[in-house]
Each structure stands twice: as C-alpha cells, then as structure tokens.
C-alpha cells in the first residue's frame, strides 16, 4: 500500500515494521514527529524523556535488556547525549540501539548548524543517511540490522528537508515482535572502568574494520553509471537535488556515510573523468576521499554553510543561473515568527522589557521576545543556560548586578536542564531571580507533554512536577507565583523579588493559548473609535491581532479624530483575538472593550 509520509513519519513506520517496540526521545525540530508517530502504533512503549541524555540512557538500558530501542533527538540534542554515546560505543548494545539525529542545515529552527556526521567518526559508530521518505523507512531497518549484527549503536542522520518533506512510501506488513528480553550481567562488557574499557577499546577498532569492509558491499552504497564525463559522490537530500538537475551524470550514492566504502569510491573514481562530492555543511566525505589520495572537487565550489537546493548545485557546477523574475525595487517588510495572540509570554516579557534588567534567556517560544517591541530577553545559548548564566553574571557583577539580573526559562526547558543550575544558585549563594514561564506544555516544538504536564507521551495520566515545591525543597530563599495576564501583579512581584537579597524563583503560570487541555474561550476585544486617541500604547505588546490604521491611508470622512494631533488608531482583528486583555490593561482611555 502507498502512503504520503514525511521522513519522520516514515522512520517511525520503518521501525515499527521492523518489530521495534521501544522508543525514547526529547522533542526538537526537525525530529519531533518521529516519536509522536511511533508512539501511536499498537503495542509500542514510547516516552518523552526530560532530556536527550536521559533518553539515550533509557534506550541503552532497554537495549541491554534485549530490546530494540529507537532514540530520537535534534542535532544539538546529541551534544547533551554525547556523554553516554561515546561510551555505549565501547559497550555495544546487546539488543539494538538506533539514534536518530535530525540536523538542521540553514538553522530553520536551531541555534547552530552543526554537522552531526562528525559524531559518527568521533564516537566510531556507523551512520546512515536517507534521501527521502521511502529511504527513511528502509534505512531505519538497516540501521537496526547493523546494530544487531555488529553490536553497535547506529546513528540515522536526517536533515530538515528529509524529516519534513513528504513523499510516497510503500508500506510493508510489520514483522511480529520477537521477545528477546533478558537479564544478563556481563561486567567485562558493561562496566566501563579503565581496565575493561581498554579491552573494549580494541573491540571498537575491530568492529570499525568490519564495518568498513561491509560498507563496500552495502547495497545502499550504489554506483549509477551513466555519462562517464562527470561523477558525483553524494548522500541524503543532496542526491535528489543533484539528480533533478543532472539526471545524466554518473553517481555514487552513499547510504552508509560512515565508515566510507573505500574500494567502491576508488572504483567509481577510476571510471569517471571529473569527480565532485556534493554535501551540505562540513566537507565530511570530501576530506576522507581526499585523504585516500583521490582528486575531487567539493567545497572549492559548493557553499560550506546553509542548505542546498537544485539551483545552488546547478550554478556551482555550470556557472549558469536560472532566469528568474526580478524583485521590484521596494522594501519588503520582514515577517518573522511572533508570539501568538493571547500568548502568556507576552505579559511577562512586556514587564521585563520595561524594567532595566539583563534577561538571560533560554530556548522556546519565549525566545521570540527578544524582538521589538517587547525586547525582554538578552541572551540565548542553549537549553538551561538562562539559569546558570544569570548566576554567573550576578556572581561576576556582585553588588553592581544586584536587582538587575533575571534568568527566564520555559517549563519544558527547565525540566530539561534548568534544575541543576538552580541547585548551583542555592549552593553557591547566588542572587539571581529566576522565572519559569510555565505555559503547561512544550510549545515551540508543537505542544508535547513533559514531566510537568501530568500526562505522558502516550496520554496516560501521571504525576506532575510542582515547581514551587521543588524550589522550596532545593532551598531557594523565595518562591512566588504570578499570572502573566495580570500585568500589575507581574510587575509588582518581579520588582519585589529583584529588590530582595538572596535567590528567588517566580513561576509565571498561564497555559499556552494553543494548549488543548486548558483552552478557555473568551470573547474577543474591540477598539472603541469614540475613545481611541491613537497613543499606540497597546501596540507596544506586539500582538499580531492589533494593527494600526493610519488616517492618511483613508479617504477624508472615513475616520474620526478624538484629538487634533491624532494620526490614526488601533484596530483589533476579531478573528484572531483571544481576549487575553493584556493590551486593554495598557489603554489609559479604556478604549479596548470586550465583545458582547
């Protein structure tokens, strides 16, 4: 049967078809939908772990117990999970373990563009890279096969274009689950103290040699001979881009990208006149091919940053550009992503932007609050960094920084990696004010549950972390709760906490407007033309539902001025307004009213 699946859905499907019934991961674009899709299959156990390190360790545990475990994360997630990765490479995986790393060339929704193929070489584990949904479905099975056969973790690397493109997939009957679970201690293999690790170290090299041999015969590393004038070595999505512009060239299409098939590469190189390596990001294949003493053209002509497309490849090789329409000579206003109408983050960041404080920020929807007009966030490095950076800053600034440093972190991010640095603040007597933006969900990546929501990935009821109690138990000097829809309360509490000595934790609690479990239907608001003086106060919250009507754009008589100097007035789009009333709290003329 045929189905239209995204790369991510296809990975889930492939794993299920192969008999995999165990999955763990942490959300992160572009990987999130893999585990979401996988969790819906019959008989599967799948969990959102609090972070990627935990997810990988959960997967390792399951694998040592004989299961086939699928672990998913975005590229930066593998940094968090790198510690267990490097050592599970030594122990091997008993059952099977496949780690999906979804990379994000062009940083569509990431803070960096790292090329995780490097992890395969670094940790000495094999890496497969599919080019589309159908390959994603098939390759995840090959990855599990390799894991079982070579007793190794295997990385399945996708990129945003593979994960989030859809294509036609040929569904197969799932194989029945085979119960191979066991409890079998093997200290020489699983207790990585130096004496044993030294032994395993050699096993890793042996395994790598065997994998290099396998690479030459792996059916997914294939030569497609056509015109011998030009040969292209490529993998993943770049293969599709290249095929679409150069259908007649010869190809060495790599499915197993690490370790490389040296014999096959030499054979291919000898059969073509001019050889290119086409790969996004790092010259990962190119450098290894060059190290074989083969002359090849790569990053001399192809970009080293950003994702490719067919046109980029065509232009790099031919020097010719497509004819396109010419953009008119007008400035096109940018349209970056924005906090939604009714977003509770708007309230807290409006207040933070007004106070003269440095806000160490974190990663989530709320990061968008760095933009105009809120400008309520001043750093974003990696998950959890807001809390530790606020501590570091206030320690460095000492009395100069007192009352001026706030660390802000989302609820999911807090549970991911905000607790350890909070302990640091208490332990080392820090002074920073930490705010948890508790919107009851992981919003940025599409509303996943986490340990604070009371629901598991598979929608079972469970216990929920109580941030206030946690803060008290950890020993914070003050713990407060605010409703970010209430601007006055939010501002008062923030000021109080900033002016006190010691550490404090503020939980800013209000469910995300898109959160399905706590949706409150409120009437939308409207602007009374008889009262609006066009002061623009309400526009300072940057709500997409609010717009400005410039009177100069209207015909005479189509508007009404309340004051002489008035240039326009505010307008609320009733279709999108959620009635949160943050804007109304700023209106000194009480011109923003509720419908009905």
């Amino acid at each position, binding site marked *: 049967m045929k189905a*239209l699946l995204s790369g991510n859905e296809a990975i889930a499907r492939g794993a299920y078809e192969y008999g995999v019934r165990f999955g763990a991961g942490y959300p992160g674009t572009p990987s999130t939908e893999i585990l979401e899709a996988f969790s819906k299959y019959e008989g599967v156990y799948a969990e959102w772990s609090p972070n990627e390190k935990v997810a990988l360790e959960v997967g390792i545990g399951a694998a040592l117990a004989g299961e086939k475990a699928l672990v998913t994360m975005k590229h930066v997630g593998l940094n968090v999970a790198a510690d267990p990765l490097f050592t599970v490479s030594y122990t091997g995986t008993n059952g099977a373990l496949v780690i999906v790393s979804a990379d994000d060339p062009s940083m569509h929704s990431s803070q960096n563009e790292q090329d995780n193929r490097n992890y395969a070489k670094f940790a000495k584990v094999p890496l497969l890279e599919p080019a*589309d949904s159908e390959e994603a479905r098939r390759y995840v099975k090959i990855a599990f096969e390799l894991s079982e056969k070579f007793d190794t973790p295997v990385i399945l690397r996708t990129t945003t*274009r593979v994960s989030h493109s859809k294509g036609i997939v040929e569904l197969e009957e799932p194989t029945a689950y085979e119960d191979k679970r066991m409890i079998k201690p093997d200290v020489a293999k699983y207790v990585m103290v130096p004496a044993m690790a030294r032994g395993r170290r050699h096993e890793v090299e042996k395994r790598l040699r065997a994998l290099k041999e396998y690479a030459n015969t792996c059916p997914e590393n294939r030569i497609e001979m056509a015109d011998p004038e030009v040969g292209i070595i490529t993998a993943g999505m770049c293969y599709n881009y290249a095929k679409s512009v150069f259908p007649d060239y010869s190809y060495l299409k790599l499915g197993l990208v690490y370790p490389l098939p040296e014999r096959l590469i030499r054979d291919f190189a000898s059969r073509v006149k001019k050889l290119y390596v086409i790969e996004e990001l790092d010259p990962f294949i190119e450098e290894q091919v060059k190290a074989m003493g083969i002359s090849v053209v790569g990053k001399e002509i192809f970009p080293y940053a950003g994702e490719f*497309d067919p046109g980029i490849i065509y232009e790099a090789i031919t020097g010719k550009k497509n*004819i396109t329409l010419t953009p008119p000579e007008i*400035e096109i206003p940018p*349209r970056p992503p924005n906090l939604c109408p009714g977003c509770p983050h708007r309230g807290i960041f409006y207040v933070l932007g007004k106070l003269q404080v440095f806000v160490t920020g974190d990663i989530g929807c709320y990061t968008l609050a760095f933009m105009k007009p809120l400008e309520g966030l001043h750093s974003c490095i990696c998950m959890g960094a807001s809390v530790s950076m606020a501590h570091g800053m206030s320690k460095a600034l000492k009395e100069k920084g007192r009352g001026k440093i706030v660390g802000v972190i989302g609820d999911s991010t807090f549970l991911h990696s905000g607790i350890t640095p909070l302990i640091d603040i208490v332990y080392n007597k820090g002074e920073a004010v930490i705010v948890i933006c508790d919107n009851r969900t992981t919003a940025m990546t599409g509303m996943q549950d986490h340990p604070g929501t009371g629901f598991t990935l598979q929608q079972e009821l469970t216990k929920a972390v109580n941030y206030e109690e946690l803060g008290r138990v950890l020993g914070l000097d003050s713990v407060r709760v605010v409703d970010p829809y209430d601007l006055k309360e939010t501002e008062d509490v923030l000021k109080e906490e900033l002016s006190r000595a010691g550490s404090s934790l503020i939980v800013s609690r209000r469910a995300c407007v898109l959160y399905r479990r706590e949706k409150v239907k409120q009437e939308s608001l409207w602007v009374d033309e008889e009262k609006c003086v066009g002061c623009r106060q309400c526009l300072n919250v940057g709500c997409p539902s609010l717009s400005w009507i410039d009177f100069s754009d209207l015909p005479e008589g189509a508007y009404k001025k309340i004051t002489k100097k008035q240039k326009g007035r505010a307008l609320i789009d009733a279709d999108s307004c959620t009635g949160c009333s943050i804007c109304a709290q700023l209106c000194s003329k009480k011109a923003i009213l509720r419908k009905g």
Partner: protein
Amino acid sequence: MERKDKVRRLLLAGVGGQGILKASDMICTALMYEGLDVKKSEVHGMAQRGGSVTSHVLYGSKVFSPVAGRGEVDILIAFEILESLRYINYLKPTSKVILNDFRINPPVVNLGIMKYPEHIEDIWKEQVTSLEVIKAREIARKAGNFRSENVVMVGILARHLPVKREIWERVINESFSEDLRDVNIRAFQLGYSALPS
C-alpha cells in the same frame, strides 16, 4: 535551464495560521491518488508562529527533489498579498500566479516602522501573463467558516491540476472531521467556480 523531466512545481506561500500546510497535504494526496509521483517540502517549527510559511509541491512521473530552485516554479499560490512578493525570484516569466486578495500586517507595519507595500497586484500584472486574483477569505465566510480560506485556494488551483473532481471530494472528506466536511466541500466548490476557467 532546460529541464528534461516533466515535473511541475507549485509554491504555496502565506502566513502561519492560514492553513497552508494542510492545503499542500491535500494537493499532494490528490495527486498521489491520480497515480502521480509527488513530493512536498516545508519547514515547521518557527514558521508556525505567524511568520512567513511556504510549501513546495512537485509532481510528475518521477520526482527527485522536494523543493524547487529559483526560477523553477510553475504556479505560485499566494495566500497573502505581501507574501507573494517575497518569493518572486522562484518564478519565471511563464509562471502563473494565484493571489488571495487578503492582507495581514507584519509586526513592523503594525508598529509603524515600515509601510505595507501598495499596488502589489499591479507589480504582478507587469511581471506575469497569468494572474488570478481571488478574495478567498470572503468566499470562505460565505461557505460558512473563514478558516476554510485554504480550501478555497485549493479549489481555485484545482482548475490547473490533472486531478478529477471525485478525487478532490474524497481528499476533502478524508482531510476533515465530519462536522467540517460540508463547509469545506462548499469552500472548494466556491473556489473552483470563482473565476472563469
């Protein structure tokens, strides 16, 4: 560049929240039911928060790339006036443009930092020979729900795609829960017949 493949390339563009990804899913499913090879590509995540959204749809007997390069798009389906312009260099002189006459101010316009460009329709008239302008949101309201704007757009595009009417109906039925089917069937039909073909 001369392309030997007979692949057709569509680009849907608009603003997060307008239902563009759903529309392109429907288009792809319909093309698949017609027995064609089809791929589509979009970027989720940040784009959902009211930012610019695009979706590429490519179809033919065999499709490799799920994205079109610059100068390769055959039909631009713009869900918002300004967003149509952002991708102009994906088009070529023979491209068709379907334009939803609907304006959503980006934040910089609401803040009074920039002006919303005027006369975009005229720019298109100069650049392409085939321009179809439609008020999809109004039509969707007539059908019963403004949110069906995306299905109205699919309706108007459908006149240019090799997909039979009964397949469209099947796709709409499969794409929506029961309570939304009738509205969307109406929205599709109103879109389909909004302009003379």
